[in-house]
């Protein structure tokens, strides 16, 4: 396979279905998922709550295995979780007994330190590992809080440490599960802008779960809209061709932006109007 096709199909999801076994019998969460993500592409997964967005992300992360179908990353089957597909968790999931620095260092050490010999990369010494950790914290603007524990910093800062931990591992893919969902609107906007900057600098491939229409349009190249669960599948894929760098204030007046926004809202609230299921 040529590099070009590999780049266009960096992540490949083919006919994936996920069924959970519950006490009430099998629960089909996802069916017929076919999706490709190009290298350096920013993809947002959007849909109503309970539609299986996070399930799909967990499948790409390798945290769960699909019932049917295949997932490939860089032409290799995803067989389990690993640092090349770093996850930024919804609730930051920092270890409360470690400082911010130590939380980030934990991942850096694993990927670039002595323990990484199996991956074939030359292992780096402690000073290099610490420099990497410092650089990642600087990238998210948290150098001053490096020696604080997660309990001592705000929710937005915790989420930034989570992003730093993921980015510091130089993953092939950055997976984000509603990373800003628990934050207030102002903090969220600030972090979205920072994320735009970071992604532009690192040229990362990103798959992000969100339920925020503006977030999806502002950040992504491609918005993947999921139908309502159970047995959710991809309803529509919207390519967002807004020029980068994107600025929130300018976009608010752009007709294109409003067009994209309307397309997503139409899908979510007209065609997939959410019906609360009692089951």
């Amino acid at each position, binding site marked *: 396979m040529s590099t070009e096709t590999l780049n266009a199909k960096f992540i490949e999801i083919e006919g994936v279905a996920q069924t959970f076994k519950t006490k009430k019998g099998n629960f089909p969460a996802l069916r017929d998922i076919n999706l490709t993500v190009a290298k350096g592409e920013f993809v947002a997964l959007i849909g109503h709550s309970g539609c299986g967005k996070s399930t799909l992300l967990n499948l790409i992360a390798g945290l769960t295995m699909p019932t049917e179908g295949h997932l490939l990353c860089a032409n290799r089957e995803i067989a389990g*979780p690993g640092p090349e597909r770093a996850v930024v968790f919804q609730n930051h*999931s920092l270890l409360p007994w470690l400082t911010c620095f130590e939380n980030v260092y934990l991942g850096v050490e694993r990927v670039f330190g002595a*323990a990484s010999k199996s991956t074939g990369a030359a292992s780096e010494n402690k000073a290099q590992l610490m420099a990497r950790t410092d650089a990642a914290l600087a990238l998210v603007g948290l150098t001053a809080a490096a020696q604080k524990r997660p309990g001592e910093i705000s929710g937005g800062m915790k989420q930034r440490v989570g992003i730093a931990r993921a980015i510091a*591992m130089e993953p092939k893919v950055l997976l984000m599960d509603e990373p800003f969902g628990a934050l207030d609107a102002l903090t969220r906007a600030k972090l979205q802008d920072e994320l735009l900057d970071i992604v532009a600098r690192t040229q990362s491939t990103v798959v992000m779960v969100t339920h925020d229409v503006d977030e999806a349009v502002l950040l992504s190249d491609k918005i993947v809209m999921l139908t309502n669960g159970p047995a959710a599948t991809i309803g529509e894929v919207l390519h967002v061709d807004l020029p980068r760098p994107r600025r929130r204030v300018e976009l608010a007046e752009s007709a294109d932006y409003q067009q994209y926004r309307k397309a997503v809202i139409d899908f979510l609230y007209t065609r997939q109007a959410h019906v609360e299921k009692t089951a």
Partner: protein
Amino acid sequence: MVSAVFHSPSATAAESVAAMQVAAPVALKAVQATPTSSACVDAQPGFDWNGLLLTVMPPVLGLLLLVLIWSMVSMATAGSIPTPIDTAKQAIDIFSDPFYRKGPNDQGVGWNVLASLQRVALGFGLAALVGIPSGFVIGRFEFMSRMFNPLISLMRPVSPLAWLPIGLLVFKGAHPAAIWTIFICSIWPMIINTAVGVQRVPQDYMNVARVLNLSEWKIVTKILFPSVLPYMLTGVRLAVGTAWLVIVAAEMLTGGVGIGFWVWDEWNNLNVKNIIIAIFVIGIVGLMLEYALIKIASAFTYEEVKS
């Protein structure tokens, strides 16, 4: 820096040093300890007498109530329960020489308490050595949990003293039998709490471990152990409490030296004052053990673990 503060005669210099030494708490303490510094005088404008009264009054009233009831019981039993004042006099007498030795059955209260504490420490320490690792294994592996849960459920409700004859039979001595009893009573809370702690390690943390691809050693030291620690310490605290309850009863039965034996001995001597003193001693030692363990536990509990 510290010496500079000590030798500074002018209060303004001391204040400016104090202001810039937020990052150096040692030096800050030195400033407060310096009598010439005016900064510490201004620090407490008007002592909060009202607050102190509200904090101290309820417990003092509680103690007074106890003494009152005690006096009434003493009067009602026509002195066979000694009055608080007589008991206090006796206590002063006893605590003025807690470490005397006049033969194996007549030793100071200090020796008795130490002997009991030593038994508790030994039995409890052995229980921790066995119980905590077992708890980890039972918590980590579903199979083990299902294998041992029926056994634990069966043995846990048994009064520890029921195990004393078995101990006497197997170890052929009162001292090891008492330690055995402590062991068996303090092992269950430690096993159960550690196992529950391991089962309750948040799935998020385990997902982090999987994504970072951490080694088993790192998982244990960086994730499992710190998140189980608060549960484990709760188990330890419950275990120490039970052990201290049980040692008194066990020593009554086995004899020798120890606070429980002392109570029984004084009963045989019909020295009721000493029995009451022993009750206070047992209570206070138990309180101190509990307090120390709560302090340790809170030092190792992090915000996110509590919620």
